[in-house]
C-alpha cells in the first residue's frame, strides 16, 4: 500500500527491508554455526561406528574428545571400488577386530540408516545398529532398541558352503529347534511386519553390495 501521513513507509518497502534484515540475521547465524554443526554430525557418525564395532557401549556417556580419540586409534576408513565406504576396527595390537559396513534403505515411513559390524572372520554378526529411521514409535521403532537388536549378535550370514544367506527377520519368533533359523534368523517385532521385512531387505542389499569384498575375507579365513 502506498505511503500516507499516518504510515510513513509503504507496505512493500517496509516488508522488503524487514525481509532483508531478518534474512541477514538468519544466514549470518547459520554460516557462523555451520562448522560446529558439521562437527556434531561427524562426531555422531563416528559414535555410531564405534558402538556398532563394540568399541563403545550405547549407554556410555562419552565426550567428543573421547570419541575422536577412540575413533582415531581403532577405526580405519577404507573405500572400496565403487566408492563404497568400509570401516575396519582394530584392537590394541592392530589386528582387525570387526568389519563395519553402512546400511541404508527405505522403511515403512521413511529412510532407515544403520551400520552392520561383522567379526574379523566376516561370517558372524558382531552388532547391528539403526541410528536413523521414522518407524512407528512402540512398534517398528524397536529396531533401534537394544532389547531387539542384541539378538543379532552371533548370527551367521553364510551357510556351510560359504554362500551368502544374509539374515531374516521372522514374522513371529524364531523356532529354537530349527537349526537354520537359529543361526540365520531373528525374532520379528509384533505389529511391525513391514518394518521387519524392510530390515531383512536392507541387510541383504547391504551384504550383497559388499559381497566381493567379503568373499575375499571368507577365503582367507
Amino acid at each position, binding site marked *: *500500500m502506498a505511503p500516507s501521513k499516518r*504510515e*510513513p*513507509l*509503504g*507496505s512493500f518497502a*517496509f*516488508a522488503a527491508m*524487514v*525481509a532483508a534484515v*531478518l534474512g541477514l*540475521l*538468519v544466514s549470518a*547465524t*547459520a554460516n557462523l*554455526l555451520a562448522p*560446529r*554443526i558439521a562437527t*556434531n554430525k561427524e*562426531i*555422531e557418525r563416528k559414535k555410531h561406528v564405534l558402538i556398532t564395532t563394540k568399541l563403545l557401549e550405547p549407554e556410555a556417556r562419552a565426550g567428543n574428545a573421547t570419541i575422536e580419540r577412540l575413533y582415531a586409534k581403532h577405526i580405519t576408513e577404507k573405500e572400496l571400488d565403487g566408492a563404497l565406504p568400509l570401516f575396519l576396527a582394530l584392537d590394541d595390537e592392530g589386528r582387525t577386530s570387526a568389519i563395519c559396513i553402512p546400511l541404508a534403505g527405505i522403511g515403512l515411513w521413511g529412510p532407515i540408516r544403520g551400520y552392520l559390524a561383522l567379526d574379523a572372520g566376516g561370517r558372524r554378526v558382531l552388532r547391528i545398529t539403526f541410528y536413523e529411521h521414522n518407524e512407528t*514409535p*512402540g512398534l517398528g521403532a524397536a529396531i533401534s532398541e537394544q532389547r531387539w537388536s542384541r539378538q543379532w549378535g552371533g548370527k551367521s550370514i553364510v551357510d556351510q558352503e560359504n554362500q551368502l544367506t544374509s539374515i531374516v527377520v521372522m514374522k513371529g519368533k524364531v523356532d529354537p529347534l530349527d537349526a537354520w533359523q537359529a543361526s540365520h534368523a531373528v525374532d520379528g517385532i509384533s505389529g511391525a511386519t513391514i518394518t521387519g521385512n524392510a530390515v531383512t531387505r536392507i541387510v541383504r542389499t547391504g551384504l550383497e553390495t559388499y559381497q566381493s569384498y567379503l568373499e575375499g575375507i571368507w577365503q582367507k579365513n
Partner: protein
Amino acid sequence: MAKELAKVALPPLWKRNPITVQILGVCSALAVTVELRPALVMGMAVVFVMGGTNLAVSLLRHWIPRRIRILIMLAVVASMVIVVDQVLRAFMWEVSKQLSIFVGLIITNCIVLGRAEGFALSNPPGRSLLDGAASGFGYAWILVLVGAWRELLGSGRIGGKEIVPIWLYDAGYVNNGIMVLAPGAFFLLGVLVWVQRSLSGYREGEP
C-alpha cells in the same frame, strides 16, 4: 514502577498461565515432555523466541503498516525460531535431536503471535520484552513440571539420574509405560490444569 512491571510479568506465570488457563501451546507440551531435559530446553527456547519477538515487534510498532502486520510478525517469529534451532544444533546436539521438529513448530504456538499482536504492537519495548519472557516462563514451568513427572513415573529417573531405588523394582514396582506416551501427558496435563485453576481461583468466562 515496580508494581506496573509486576502487573506485566506476574499474570502469565500464574493467573493467566498460557497453558493451564488459556489452553494454548498444548501440542508441544505433550510431545517434548517425555523427559525433563528436553522440556527445560524447549521452555528456554520459547522464552527466547517470545522475548525476542515481542521486543522486535515493539521496536517496529510505529512503522509496521497495518495491513501486513501479521506477515511481519510471522517473519520475525520464523527468524527467531531458525536462530534458536541452529544454536541448539551447534551447542546442544543431543537435546536438539530429541526436540527435532518441535523447535521449528514454536512458530505455530498460539501464545507467540497472541502476545505479539495483543501486547507488543501497542506497548513500549521494555514492557513487551518482559511480557514475552514472562509468558514464555509461564509456559516453561508447566513443561518442566510435566516433564519431571513423566520422566519419574515413566522411566524412574529425573534429568537422567536414577531416582527410583532398585529395591523398589525388586519388590515389584514397574515403570508406568503410558507416561512415556502421549496419553500419559494428556492425563497429567488435565490434572495439572484442574489443580492450577482450583488454586488460582480461575472461573470460566471471567476476563
